[in-house]
């Protein structure tokens, strides 16, 4: 029994005459602090061996400074981790994700090539993707990544959710490695180009209106042709985004000369379209 918890029980007994006999006997491995006016002071779950300490049921004469000191001692003197319950759950889920084969395989290939910052973004993105696959909401988690890492965070997350690391970046790395001129720096340069330019792709997000989707795709087509990239990839996640993409392609793009759709894959709620671009024939509608 950790000293802080022993002290808590001891103080409850001595200062406010709470009967703590049963709690002293209970086997407890973890602790939870809550404030609940309807629940008892301490509850021990015999299955989870968790002691739920309800500060809302502390007798009014129990000194609040005492409980604060015990929490402080638990962290600073006894090296307990004090963590909000949802954050603890996220960490457990995240750790579970990192045992999955498809996640491990991406990290194994790329860890030595990406910066520590990009590695955190990638790990976060892979976790996001696993949650999305399970149908869970990822909006706040994605915002977390973008808040902390800005545009680069957004780009890596988008590339990850579109499967680009497995479909393009890792195969590219493997291909480059077969060349005797391969160097780590060369791959990193190419990788950065893919990330920074998100070179071949348009990612359709929830906030983009129909006209914006169309203009993004047209602009990307023109830009790719200008820089000699003979194709464009279009990705969308979600039913509404798929509608917007189809509307843009069927509405305007089908009339453009030198633009040909060569792939159109819909998997669940995700769409991927590849357009081949012929700069010699290209003419905007």
């Amino acid at each position, binding site marked *: 029994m*950790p000293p802080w918890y022993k002290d808590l029980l001891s103080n409850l007994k001595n200062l406010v005459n709470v009967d703590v006999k049963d709690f002293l006997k209970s086997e407890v491995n*973890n602790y*939870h*602090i*809550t404030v609940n006016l309807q629940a008892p002071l301490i509850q021990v779950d015999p299955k989870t061996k968790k002691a739920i300490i309800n500060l809302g049921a502390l007798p009014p004469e129990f000194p609040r400074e005492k409980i604060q000191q015990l929490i402080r001692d638990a962290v600073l003197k006894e090296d307990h981790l004090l*963590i*909000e319950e949802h954050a603890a759950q996220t960490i457990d889920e995240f750790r579970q994700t990192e045992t999955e084969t498809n996640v491990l395989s991406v990290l194994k290939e790329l860890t030595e090539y990406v910066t520590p910052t990009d590695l955190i973004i990638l790990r976060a993105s892979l*976790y*996001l993707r696993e949650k999305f696959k399970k149908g869970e909401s990822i909006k706040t988690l994605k915002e977390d990544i973008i808040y902390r*890492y800005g545009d680069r965070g957004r780009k890596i997350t988008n590339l990850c959710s579109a499967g680009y690391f497995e479909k393009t970046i890792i195969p590219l790395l493997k291909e480059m490695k077969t060349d005797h001129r391969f160097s780590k720096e060369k791959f990193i340069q190419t990788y950065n180009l893919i990330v920074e330019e998100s070179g071949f792709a348009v990612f359709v997000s929830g906030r983009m209106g129909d006209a914006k989707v169309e203009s993004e795709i047209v602009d990307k087509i023109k830009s790719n042709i200008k820089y000699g990239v003979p194709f464009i990839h279009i990705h969308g996640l979600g039913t509404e985004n798929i509608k917007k993409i189809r509307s843009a392609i069927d509405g305007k793009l089908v009339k453009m000369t030198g633009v040909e759709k060569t792939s159109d894959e819909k998997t669940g709620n995700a769409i991927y379209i590849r357009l081949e671009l012929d700069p010699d024939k290209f003419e905007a509608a």
Partner: protein
Amino acid sequence: MAKKVITFDDSARNHVMASFGLTADNDGYLVEKTNRSNRVISINGDPIKADRLASIKKGSLQLFNSDLPSLIQLADRLK
């Protein structure tokens, strides 16, 4: 989650903050009770909103925000 863990829920947040001499300023950011003009910072150097305080760890009092990248950093420190 490792042993020697104490979780708390939102209802106990103020108690947790008070245990470390912390409170929220008018904009909701964590400040020291004895020095309200100075916002305390997370291990990433950012000020933390009280409702996004995820964790407190020993080590000159390490504070972690609840955003995903920060939780990944915390997970790595707990290995």
